[in-house]
């Protein structure tokens, strides 16, 4: 039996935040990001038979996503040549071998800053993967979505003091997880 198997019914719950954050900084548009992720899921289902189980499910999805992002830039480049894009892609490589530079038009951050922040964001999502699923969901609601305590308590049927204990545990675990590379 292969080490890793595919479970398409869990893809959205498990990976959509990761895929979305990976994509959004690279295409700078929510609608386009959503479309690219749709295409990625569909392409993944189409080639599910070819999945050998050597990579993790997420790594495999990301490799398909990268190709879809490249396809997107090829399309707009051949149409307009508006953004200057350089892409290096190695088919049998890891995530880090992929380089894309995009001319930033509106912000004063360099492309490098944007990519570093994105890497940090993905590391945070990685760390959240290793804590209790419900706690991670509550943490995301509070921290990323910025919802009110009351709203979250209603959604998850918990008391405010439950919420703060969960947030405390999540933050402690997250800080410990990020410690090595980011603190």
């Amino acid at each position, binding site marked *: 039996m292969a080490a890793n198997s595919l479970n*398409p*019914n869990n*893809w*959205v*719950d498990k990976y*959509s*935040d990761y895929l*979305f*954050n990976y994509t*959004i*900084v690279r295409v700078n548009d*929510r609608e386009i990001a*959503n479309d690219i*992720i*749709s295409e990625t*899921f*569909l392409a993944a*289902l*189409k080639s*599910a*038979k070819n999945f050998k189980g050597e990579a993790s499910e997420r790594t495999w999805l990301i490799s398909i996503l990268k190709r879809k992002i490249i396809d997107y830039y090829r399309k707009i480049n051949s149409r307009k040549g508006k953004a200057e894009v350089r892409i290096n892609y190695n088919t049998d490589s890891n995530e880090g071998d992929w380089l894309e530079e995009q001319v930033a038009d509106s912000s004063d951050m360099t492309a490098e800053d944007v990519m570093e*922040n*994105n890497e*940090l*964001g993905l590391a*945070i*999502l990685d760390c959240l993967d290793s804590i209790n699923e419900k706690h991670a969901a509550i943490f*995301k609601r*509070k*921290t*990323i*979505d910025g919802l009110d*305590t009351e709203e979250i308590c209603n959604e998850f049927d918990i008391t405010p003091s439950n919420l*703060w*204990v969960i*947030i*405390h545990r999540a*933050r402690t675990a*997250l*800080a410990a997880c*990020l410690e090595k590379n*980011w*603190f």
Partner: protein
Amino acid sequence: MGVKKKNFLIDCSEAGICCDKAQYKDASFSEKAKLLIHLIYCKICRKRTFRNSKLTKLIKESKLQSCPEDQKKVWKEQIQTKNTTENP
């Protein structure tokens, strides 16, 4: 007087929660006051508060976003429909 004074002294776990609330600007005036008083004499919590604030800064810098639940629903439906035709 004695009782009031005691109310303003909190233990480390309560200080931790006050600090978390402060990270989200959810701490009340009295919680902030209690935390500050605690930090005067508790070195461990001073360290923890520094770390917690650093975490807040990192999260902010990461610019993480979550995709809306509606979009997740769309993807789930697409996957289900396609999966039954591709891999019955």
